[in-house]
């Protein structure tokens, strides 16, 4: 049975923890709003990019001059997985969810006899994957110093990936990130970015895509400029989604923690009060029985 003093200390410490989790929840809520705004602001660009890409692919008509980034190497022996997670923990199952998803994927690929390489974006994913597949990790990208996620960050990652591709480092590149659905629900997603595959033809039909474009310079040249940029955009979008998802997960995790701390404080207070009452009664009995004995 803990003493009254122990209980008092315990209650004080749980209260302190509750204050911290509450503050973290509020910070996460504010950051979530900003992250969502950023994700929203980035949407027009990637949408237009998709439309333009669809248009231009049609113009080329899948001819032989499509760049390798789009058609791939024709093999699927070496897979590169870019696993994007958060830099910080304390956000519920967010990081482990992505890592588990990636791990299942890796296991399947390895079972099929494929070669796997991993690039970790974010510290947490690296920490988790290092345990099982440390040898496969070829690089980790640290974004801890980055305050607001800019396009340059995504661009740097994409450039690395493309550079590796040009050196023949891998055949297929898949991006792992968490899609932000709502504050309480983030869906781990795998998206293949290299080869890009032909974009769906639906987009171009609706805005009269039959328009005969003039290209300046040649379509092939534009396309070879466009594809790397599109990869950067995909990475950027993944990072933004991730940032929003992380904050959402953190917010709900901290909300839970705050509530748990509240419950705990209630329980502890009841125990504390009971025990105090018991002690008073005990002392009374001692006094009374002492008086009676006289």
């Amino acid at each position, binding site marked *: 049975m803990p003493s009254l003093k122990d209980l008092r200390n315990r209650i004080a410490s749980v209260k302190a923890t509750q204050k911290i989790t509450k503050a973290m929840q509020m910070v996460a809520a504010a950051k979530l709003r900003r992250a969502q705004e*950023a994700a929203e*602001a*980035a949407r*027009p*660009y*990637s949408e*237009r*990019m998709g*439309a*333009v890409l669809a*248009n*231009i692919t049609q113009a080329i008509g899948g001819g032989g001059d499509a760049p390798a980034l789009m058609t791939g190497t024709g093999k699927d022996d070496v897979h590169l997985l870019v696993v994007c997670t958060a830099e910080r923990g304390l956000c519920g199952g967010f990081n482990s969810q992505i890592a588990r998803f990636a791990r299942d994927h890796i296991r399947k690929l390895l079972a099929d006899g494929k070669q796997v390489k991993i690039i970790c974006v974010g510290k947490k994913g690296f920490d988790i994957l290092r345990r099982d597949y440390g040898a496969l990790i070829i690089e980790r990208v640290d974004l801890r110093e980055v305050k607001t996620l*800019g*396009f340059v960050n*995504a661009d740097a990652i994409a450039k690395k990936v493309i550079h590796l591709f040009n050196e023949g480092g891998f055949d297929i590149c898949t991006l792992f990130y968490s899609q932000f659905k709502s504050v309480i629900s983030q869906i781990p997603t795998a998206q293949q970015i290299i080869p890009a595959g032909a974009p769906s033809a639906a987009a171009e039909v609706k*805005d009269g895509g039959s*328009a*005969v*474009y*003039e*290209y*300046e*310079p040649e*379509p092939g*040249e*534009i396309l070879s*400029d*466009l594809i790397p*940029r599109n990869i*950067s*955009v995909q990475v*950027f979008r993944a990072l933004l989604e991730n940032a929003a998802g992380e904050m959402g997960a953190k917010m709900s995790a901290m909300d839970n923690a705050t509530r748990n701390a509240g419950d705990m404080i209630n329980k502890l207070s009841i125990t504390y009060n009971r025990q105090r009452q018991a002690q008073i009664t005990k002392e009374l009995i001692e006094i009374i029985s002492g008086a009676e004995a006289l």
Partner: protein
Amino acid sequence: MPEAFKFELVSPERLLVSEQVESVVIPGAEGEMTVMAHHAPVMTTIKPGVVTLKTAQGKEERYVVFGGFADIVPAGCTLLAESAVAVGDIDRADLARRIQEAKEDAADAKDDQTRSKAEQFLSQLTTLEGAILPA
């Protein structure tokens, strides 16, 4: 009074401009071009430079863009810029940094093709700097 059309300037971070304009001057990869309403469909990459647009109200606005591409259709014009800022907000230090980086790229280039590309980019940047500094 020329007819107005829809012009959009988008950077990966946000939508900068979306309004009715009379004309836009775009620094295309193969020369500057002025786009007006009912322009024939053209798709072009753009080099670092200044985009000048004249709004339907007759106001003139200038933006600095660093590479990207433009999608021009008779109904409007969309400019997807790698990064874009209003001329008034340009950060001199940032521009200087970009030029420095371009210089390093040019110096580091391994084969002739990448070097000529990097040098071309560098000269475009310096022209751009010259164009906006007195502004």
